[in-house]
């Protein structure tokens, strides 16, 4: 009840925020929406399937660069088409990578995904002619639902139509993921996480399901990546860097990976926290490291776990 009430209040606040005339805070939340979408996917892989990827930023970068290539080089300005293309590209790339990675579990899976992430980072960094190297690629402002919105300046575009568009994509992504997690496929993933050998005896193709989860996570990652690069107008190699993947894992732990909305909360809190701590001290990485240690030691179920515990205590 408390969690639901808090969720409704937070949802209403997110909807009303652009009307409050705080453009800085509003634009600050835009990356949180992108991360939240990507984390919903990552959590299908980790929370549901038990596979922790240390290279998920690869797919965020893939989405970002797809958006850059389509808007900047191919003149595709429809964000719906960009999202669709990013999802398709991510799925195509995720299949061969996933086929290799899902043969392994635990640290081996994590290391393989990290290796692929760094391979992609190197590709983005070194193939200057194709990717713009360390300068990255510009992402031009896309049309939303066929509307160019050229009369709006950047801030008005981002804090108005794009904000609601990104929020809408997050809501749709959450609904799709909710459906997926509650489906027989989602149940199968949870059974695989608990005991893959026993899941097999029920006719569940463990590798096939893991691969499907990997591809879905990649698609969500790429969609999140598109939402991330539109506000900055730039896709750069750091999107694929391993520290970015590390941040994703941090957000997941912060929000709580065993709760459906944990990734969304983790993304929102991470972005707000990062902004606050960075404005207070230049040692913000140190502070974040300490926070991560506290979460892992004292609140392994993250912030959502904390809310659940309060709810249990209240009842």
């Amino acid at each position, binding site marked *: 009840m408390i969690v639901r009430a808090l969720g409704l209040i937070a949802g209403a606040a997110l909807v009303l925020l652009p009307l409050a005339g705080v453009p800085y805070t509003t634009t600050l939340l835009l990356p949180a929406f992108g991360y939240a979408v990507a984390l919903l996917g990552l959590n299908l892989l980790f929370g549901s399937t038990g596979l922790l990827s240390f290279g998920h930023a690869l797919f965020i970068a893939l989405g970002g660069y797809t958006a850059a290539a389509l808007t900047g080089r191919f003149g595709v300005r429809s964000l719906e088409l960009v999202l669709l293309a990013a999802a398709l590209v991510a799925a195509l790339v995720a299949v061969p990578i996933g086929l290799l990675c899902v043969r392994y579990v635990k640290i081996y899976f994590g290391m393989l995904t990290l290796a692929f992430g760094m391979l992609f980072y190197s590709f983005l960094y070194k193939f200057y002619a194709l990717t713009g190297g360390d300068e990255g690629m510009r992402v031009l402002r896309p049309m939303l639902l066929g509307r160019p919105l050229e009369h709006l300046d950047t801030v008005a575009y981002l804090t108005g139509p794009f904000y609601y568009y990104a929020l809408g994509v997050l809501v749709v992504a959450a609904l799709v993921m909710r459906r997926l997690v509650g489906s*027989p496929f989602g*149940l*199968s993933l*949870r*059974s695989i*996480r*608990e*005991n893959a*050998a*026993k*899941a*097999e*005896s*029920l*006719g*569940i*193709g*463990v590798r096939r399901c893991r691969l499907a989860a990997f591809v879905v996570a990649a698609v969500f990652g790429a969609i999140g990546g598109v939402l991330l690069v539109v506000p900055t107008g730039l896709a750069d190699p750091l999107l694929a860097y391993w520290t970015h993947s590390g941040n994703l894992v941090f957000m997941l732990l912060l929000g709580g990976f065993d709760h459906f909305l944990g990734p969304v909360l983790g993304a929102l809190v991470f972005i707000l926290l990062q902004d606050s701590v960075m404005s207070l001290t230049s040692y913000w990485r140190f502070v974040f490291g300490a926070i991560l240690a506290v979460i892992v030691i004292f609140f392994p179920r993250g912030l959502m776990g904390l809310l659940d515990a309060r709810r249990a205590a209240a009842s």
Partner: protein
Amino acid sequence: MLRVHDVDVFIQASHILRKISLEAAAGELVCLVGRNGAGKTTTLRTVMGYLRPAAGTITLAGMPIAGLPTHTIAARGVGYAPEESAVFGDLTVAENIELATWTRPGGRPAAERIARAYEIFPRLRGAAARGGTQLSGGERKMLSIARALALDPTLLLLDEPFEGLSPAIIPQLTEAIAAIAGLGPGILLAESNIHHVPRYATRLYVIERGEIVFAGRPDELRGRPDLARIVGAGL
């Protein structure tokens, strides 16, 4: 339906099963009896595809299944309830049962399979919303079998279903297994205690050190006092 013929299984360098042959037909309850470590679980795990036979053949309805992946064998209609129950603690009882209904398309609809599982184990209906970890040992055994039943199997492998259960639960489970046998699937039941072999068992195999040392009807075992030390006293 199930035919295991001259199967040899090695685990690393150890020769665990030696020329094992057994059969189970539709609607038949076949018991594989032997002491701990005799090779009962290995036999079931080999049929289920967890272990690959080094020699011999395993066929289900005339189709070879040896060497196929476990999930393919399950999808062909072999349900498996392992000794340690294999209940998914993170899922509710209802989810545990539902899980098995979509992996084997065709046959009965999911709702019918679920209804049938609850019909055989009515106790689980009341516990449908409970998590797998919140069940007693007996309930876990029931759920493990109910879930295998929800696969709509043509053959059910039950590994020591009575192991560790309270004597009060055993008759309930025995009746449930009889009801399942009445529904049509063949059942291959591994058991270390001859006294737990249901009276309605149609065929009995005794396994000792990886070899079948007796094959016949349960009543024929009475004429074999030499097997008493293997299957328990009081034959």
